[in-house]
């Protein structure tokens, strides 16, 4: 008994001695922290700082508070473009959510059919465009859809639908939709793969049990598989959101920085590009650009926060 007491007293003493600064943790964190600070945190903070300044013709900068944001949202020359870009961006996002993630879900369901032959071939082929450069994708689709010598008009004609063809990339009414669908085509492999992995994770027994319980294929999907992949659908949604609101490259590759026709494909990324670097007659303004970038950051942050606190907390990950 005495021995035991002695040991426990020693242990109690030992605790404060051991609780010194955990050097090893700092050492392990240091490389990542240094890189993130240098390339991510510092530029971010500096961008926010820059958005509070204004430069004159000589290049001298002065602190102006939130005046850049007032200009952005209040000055008709700016706000029209800003709201247009934001609206287009929301449409761009909505199309991705519905079409890209919807088709991705459908493809994942098809891939997970037990009797599907050649599943891995389809998987690879559908995922392939994701690995291609956006510039190449934009170029190829411009060629395909070209009204003069693209193959889309002749293909449609071949199946008797020639009358449906239009210069989709060149019409204000269809350009944004067309660009969005090109992006959907390129990236549909990502939600497909994520959802496919989640579906594979559901044990077969569970689906068998539902079948024995009398659920048909649709009910099995609706009542069993869908609820179990909701967390993955949440992740897919937030990834889509962030990617769409940071998008720039495809529009730039297809339509250039002016995001024509008449800014109908202008999204926040292209709007930021013109503001920051300038384009044709527009003079670039690093400080206004920083304000646009900060606005984008805030928009994405709001979206992510809504997801984190409004959606993800309600989603339960299931272990099987």
């Amino acid at each position: 008994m005495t021995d035991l007491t002695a040991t426990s007293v020693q242990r109690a003493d030992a605790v404060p001695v051991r609780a010194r600064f955990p050097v090893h943790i700092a050492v392990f964190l240091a490389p990542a922290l240094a890189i993130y600070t240098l390339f991510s945190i510092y530029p971010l903070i500096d961008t926010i700082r820059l958005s509070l300044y204004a430069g004159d013709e000589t290049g001298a900068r002065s602190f102006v508070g939130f005046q850049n944001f007032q200009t952005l949202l209040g000055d008709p020359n700016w706000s029209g473009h800003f709201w247009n870009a934001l609206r287009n961006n929301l449409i761009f996002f909505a199309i991705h959510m519905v079409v890209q993630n919807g088709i991705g879900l459908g493809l994942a369901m098809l891939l997970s059919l037990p009797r599907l032959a050649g599943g891995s071939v389809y998987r690879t082929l559908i995922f392939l465009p994701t690995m291609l450069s956006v510039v190449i994708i934009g170029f190829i689709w411009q060629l395909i859809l070209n009204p003069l010598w693209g193959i889309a008009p002749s293909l449609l004609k071949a199946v008797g639908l020639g009358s449906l063809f239009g210069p989709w990339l060149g019409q204000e009414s269809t350009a944004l939709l067309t660009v969005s669908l090109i992006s959907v085509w390129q990236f549909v492999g990502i939600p497909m793969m994520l959802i496919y992995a989640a579906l594979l994770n559901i044990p077969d027994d569970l689906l068998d049990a539902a079948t024995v319980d009398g659920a048909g294929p649709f009910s099995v999907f609706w009542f069993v598989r869908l609820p179990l992949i909701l967390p993955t659908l949440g992740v897919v949604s937030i990834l889509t959101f962030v990617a769409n609101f940071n998008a720039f490259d495809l529009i730039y590759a297809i339509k250039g920085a002016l995001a024509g026709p008449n800014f109908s494909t202008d999204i926040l990324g292209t709007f930021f590009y013109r503001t920051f670097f300038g384009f044709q007659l527009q003079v670039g303004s690093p400080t206004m650009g920083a304000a646009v970038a900060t606005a984008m950051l805030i928009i994405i942050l709001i979206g992510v926060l809504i997801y984190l606190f409004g959606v993800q907390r309600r989603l339960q990950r299931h272990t099987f």
Partner: protein
Amino acid sequence: MADVSLQGVAKSFGATEILRDINLAVKDGEFVVFVGPSGCGKSTLLRIIAGLENVSGGEIRIGDKRVNELPPADRKIAMVFQSYALYPHMNVYKNMAFGLKFAKTNKAEVDRRVRQAAEILKLTPLLDRKPRELSGGQRQRVAIGRAIVRNPSVFLFDEPLSNLDAALRVNTRLEIAKLHRDLGATMIYVTHDQVEAMTLASKIVVMNHGRIEQVGAPLELYRHPRNLFVAGFIGSPRMNFIKGQVLRVEGNIATIGFAGTEAPLAVRPASLKPGDAVTVGIRPEHMEEGGDDAASLRGTIDAVEQLGESSYVYMRLASGDDVIVRAPGETDAAPGGSYTAHVPRKALHVFDAEGVSVLAERG
């Protein structure tokens, strides 16, 4: 309540034959256990009865109806899976009520049945819990409850106890036996555990390599295994097999020589002739320590396992055969020593070169 009958059922995946020519009749209210080593096709057979697998040939009847073409839900069966297969996103109540939703049962009736099943299985306080908040045994009971509420004619169990720890397994085994008595439904149960098979079954179906080796009451299989496989599979530790030879045949009495001793045994007429190679089987628990007569086996002890109430003596005979003897708990046997075990003649089994039992039916 219904009979189940299988006629010429066969199943193959591509060129691989999983089951061939399975014929089996399960009577209403019987508790039938499919037992066999893994890969013998017992689970596939159960899934075929459930309708989760198609057959390549043959006919399945439940009640007086051919069910080959019926989906699982219309076969009046319920199945309990090894992994329990509870829906993780639904609470216990919804798990049990899920099947009734598709049977278009009205709300009040669903509620009545779920609560009744919960009462039987002592799940009432857990109805609002999610499966992950339950212990293994509770999950198992929910899985059984989900089967009960569907009020099936036939219960199908696919190794329902193998994920439980030993103590819980014994408990649940008793509960399932009680459930069978109370409900009186036909139950078909798959296991690789022969203790479960022996204790639960009113009829055991021993399967191997996609075929039925023998069907019978537990004790019948224990006493009269029809072939080497069944003899080796039923009983623990398994039956000792010793190579032997037919020395003489006089009428129905064949004298078998094995391990330096010989025994006259009543065999089926004309099943053996002198010089035939046979396998002699004797269960460890039927041998008796000591004895030093013509009907004794002598050997050196390799190992002794003491279990308290008994001991297992592993000995090697002069003939080279290894034999396990169940000795009394307080045996003096020690590794390296010599050992003698008496072999009662009436406990001997004899199998011919094809592994088929040749013993005449014992009274």
